[in-house]
């Protein structure tokens, strides 16, 4: 915060955002509200991946795995005994989990912590690898997590998944989670630890020579990212109210990567904006998957056409803005001001050009006259 005015503007923006959330919760119909809340969950998930990809420079494809851990832990902790008995009709749930039923908020935190712990365990072997190898290894671990969940019937109910979870992910819960995550990441990135993370991303060898314990920074970043992924997964589970292993495939990770890359790896505001844009577009573009009658062409519904549209969108963005919409910059009041003045500057530039042109013409005419 450079000055008082910017601080006030920021406070205003936060209050405005809070009012929007309150209004949305009271006036939106249930479908729109669901999309609105999904935006918040994707903000949490995108920021958690950005922590790895954008700030520490670790290319991980294992996000869905950590989300699965979070979702399952939270679900098993919050479901009532009756609900569990109803779900586990093929293979009974292990007894020690049967009787646990705790409130949602502590369960959410525990889900994040368990996911962070899994992330920590995986980090040690995986982070010895770099770049593409790291991506492949994390992808592999995410698959392992999914396969374990599918087969560990007495704990996870296997492929049937868990149904009828209580709908705890209310508008307020998800948006407060998104706000806290955003705040945490902003504070982290402005601290010396955040600086160390950026240093590791930009030049590992130099960072190490400056006394930064690169491995520790990476493990910490991976663990934190897993924590938020777990929280995001738990929120998602309690919003959809049904979870099964098929939900947490690579496609889910892909969606989050899409958001982060579109928004700009290394930009908090980029991730937030992009999470909202992508989530809304995913719903708005749903008509693409349905049968269409375009006078000349008739399609009988192509499921997945939406993703084609997204891929094209992504390509266009990457061609024109290699580093995503925001690059690694942040939205600041200064940049907003510049953007607001853009039309005026454009008009001024055009006027100046016209002036120059007419002056040039005049000069030419004078020259001819002479």
């Amino acid at each position, binding site marked *: 915060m450079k000055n008082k005015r910017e601080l006030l503007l920021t406070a205003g923006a936060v209050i405005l955002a809070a009012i929007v959330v309150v209004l949305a919760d009271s006036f939106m119909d249930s479908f729109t509200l669901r999309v609105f809340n999904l935006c918040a969950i994707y903000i949490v998930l995108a920021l958690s991946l950005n922590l790895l990809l954008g700030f520490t420079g670790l290319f991980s494809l294992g996000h869905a795995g950590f989300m699965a851990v979070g979702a399952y832990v939270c679900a098993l902790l919050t479901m009532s005994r009756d609900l569990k008995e109803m779900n586990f009709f093929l293979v009974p749930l292990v007894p020690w989990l049967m009787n646990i039923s705790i409130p949602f908020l502590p369960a959410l935190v525990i889900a994040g912590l368990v996911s962070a712990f899994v992330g920590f365990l995986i980090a040690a072997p995986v982070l010895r690898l770099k770049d593409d190898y790291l991506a492949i290894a994390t992808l592999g671990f995410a698959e392992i997590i999914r396969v374990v969940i599918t087969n560990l019937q007495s704990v996870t109910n296997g492929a049937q998944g868990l149904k009828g979870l209580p709908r705890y992910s209310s508008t307020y819960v998800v948006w407060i989670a998104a706000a806290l995550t955003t705040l*945490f990441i902003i*504070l*982290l990135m402005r*601290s*010396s*630890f*955040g*600086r*160390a993370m*950026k*240093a590791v991303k*930009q*030049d590992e*060898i*130099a*960072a*190490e*020579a*400056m*006394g*930064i*314990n*690169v491995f520790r920074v990476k493990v*910490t970043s991976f663990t*934190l990212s897993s924590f938020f992924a777990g929280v995001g997964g738990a929120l998602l589970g309690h919003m959809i109210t049904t979870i099964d292993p098929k939900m947490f495939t690579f496609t889910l990770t892909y969606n989050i990567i899409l958001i982060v890359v579109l928004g700009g790896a*290394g930009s908090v505001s980029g991730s937030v904006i992009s999470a909202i844009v992508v989530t809304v577009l995913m719903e708005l573009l749903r008509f693409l998957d349905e049968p269409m009658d375009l006078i000349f062409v008739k399609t009988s519904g192509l499921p997945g056409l939406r993703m084609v549209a997204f891929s094209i969108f992504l390509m266009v963005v990457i061609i024109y803005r290699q580093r995503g919409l925001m690059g*690694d910059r942040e939205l600041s009041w200064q940049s907003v001001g510049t953007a607001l003045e853009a039309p005026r500057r454009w008009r001024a530039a055009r006027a100046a050009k016209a002036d120059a042109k007419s002056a040039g013409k005049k000069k030419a005419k004078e020259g001819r006259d002479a």
Partner: protein
Amino acid sequence: MLKTEGLTIRFGGLTAVSDFNLNIGDKEIVGLIGPNGAGKTTVFNMITGVYRPTSGRIWYRDRDITGWKPHALAAAGICRTFQNIRLFRDMTVFENVLVGCHLEISSDVFSSTFRLPGYRKREAEAEEKAHQLLKMVELSGVEDEPATALPYGQQRRLEIVRALATRPSILLLDEPAAGMNPQESLELMEFIRRLRDELNLSIFLIEHHMQVVMGVCDRMYVLDYGQTIAQGRPSEIQKNQKVIDAYLGVQ
């Protein structure tokens, strides 16, 4: 202060450096020269923990530091610069120096994220120190510029300042004068002497500019094909037949 005994490293069948014995005293400026590919940077990489020597020991203040990791060595007081400048490209000049202060802030995730009291104080001190260091090398005016926007000579200076921010007692400079014109090289020599005198540093440097090495070093070592072919004062090295042969070639 810094001593190596029989430092040897082999890459597969190739012995890149063999039986290198170094001794650097307090406040001493020592040079390491040799033709391209002689193994100079490899020596640096072994001392700073990037490579682990195949055999031999490295001693620093009577402690065996062989095989220590680079960040631990930086914490112990050994810091270096790089032949091909390695600044943090997307950071400002000031932030680059602050990264060098990382050891002093020595914060974990939570105390730094939540700005716990001790952290605030250390961070403020680090910022103050970074300002001072930048002032010392006359880079105060460009603090908020992106590091890569600086001209080449200033980037070199910034890299040295960033290393100084770790509060080293021995500084290793890998070709600090590379790409500098004669005027800049002279300024650099002056700067290196100042570092030694004002900050009581020992300096170990690799350099190709003979004018610089001969002018600034107290003692030097000459490497050729990984072997130490000569050592001594600059005046002795200049007359050494082996050194002349290595540089000019023998018939």
